[in-house]
């Protein structure tokens, strides 16, 4: 009857088998060479490539982040500048409008004053003309009246008085 335990005790321990030792070393070296060529080499290469790739990617990301930051700063500055310019334009427009307004008002005022003065001058003229006309009228009327009165009766006394009054009036006129 065979027992498993009997199998396991082997022929073991006894003696170093020189052939085994050579075989172990030679096969291990062959295995090492084959694995290095077909497994570890490509694998390490891939891992290194990935490391490089990741490094590059990180650098690229950092670079683009920096670029984005600069761009955003520039955009902000530009926006601020634009706003300032717009404000300036609005202010200028407002100022111009005010000036224009003032100018129009001034012109209007001047025109009004001029018109008023012209009107006043006209009125004065008319008035003088009217007074002149009236005075002429009054003169002729008084002559008319006087002649009527004189026609009726005139004493020496009255005549003298009349003459004096005329003279006086004439004097006042001057």
């Amino acid at each position, binding site marked *: 009857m*065979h*027992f*498993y*335990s*009997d*199998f*396991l*005790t*082997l*022929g*073991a*321990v006894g*003696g*170093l*088998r*020189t*052939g*085994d*030792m*050579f*075989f*172990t*070393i030679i*096969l*291990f*070296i*062959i*295995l*090492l060479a*084959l*694995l*290095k060529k*077909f*497994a*570890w*080499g*490509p*694998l*390490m290469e*891939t*891992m290194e*490539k*990935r490391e490089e*790739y990741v490094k590059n990617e990180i650098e690229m990301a950092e670079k683009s982040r920096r670029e984005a930051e600069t761009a955003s700063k520039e955009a902000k500055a530009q926006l601020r500048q634009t706003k300032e310019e717009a404000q300036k334009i609005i202010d200028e427009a407002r100022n111009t409008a005010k000036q224009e307004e003032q100018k129009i008002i001034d012109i209007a005022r001047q025109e009004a004053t001029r018109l008023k003065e012209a009107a006043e001058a006209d009125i004065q003229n008319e008035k003088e003309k009217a007074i002149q006309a009236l005075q002429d009228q009054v003169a002729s009327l008084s002559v008319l009246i006087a002649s009527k009165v004189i026609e009726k009766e005139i004493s020496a006394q009255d005549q003298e008085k009349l003459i004096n009054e005329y003279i006086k009036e004439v004097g006042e006129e001057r």
Partner: protein
Amino acid sequence: MDTKAPIVENVFGISWLSFNLSNVLMITLVSVIILIICIAATRKLQMKPTGAQNVMEWYVDFIKGLIGDTMDWKTGKTFLPLGLTLFLFILISNVIGMVTVVVVDDYSWWGSPTADAGVTLALAFMIVLLSHFYGLKLRGGKEYGKKFFEPVFFMFPFKVIEEFTNTLTLGLRLFGNMFAGGMLTALIIGIGAKSIGGAVLASVPMLIWSGYSLFIAGIQAFIFTMLTMLYISHKVEASH
């Protein structure tokens, strides 16, 4: 009734050359398994890793960390393929012995190659040799030689002895752990195989020990790779 190892002596008529064919077979099998797994997992490499590629990249990062702990990454980069291959080789070797048993005509063909002192010592010897080679290559003969007289000159004999003890401890630690693991498994199964009551009794410790063996397999692969990198770093790094 004991099983025997399929040993061939006097290969090609050379008196000191002998093979344990079980080890030869298992080492070949382990190598083929690793080769298939790794090459299959690293086909169709993509920038955005999926599935198997993720696992392999995690594994590479793990070994990278292990090397980074012991030496500067600039020099350590050279040893990454070695670390990757070594860890997998030892791990699969450790685990494969637990999978099954194959016996043909009383010869046991299946087992952990790392449960054989010859195999582990050969690996350790190769590592120590590599550390010297890279020490000479990367730092030059003078700097390399100076290491043996630091911190004081009379340390020289100890430093020389250290190289041999390093080889021995590195190899035998792995061998001892894996061999003991196999022995204990065999003992527990021995109890279980005697009677039905024994089987019930042995099932619990068997379950625990299987899990623990897996754990040990991982730990030993880790320790072996770590010490490898440590020994290499002692040789290639400037003294602190």
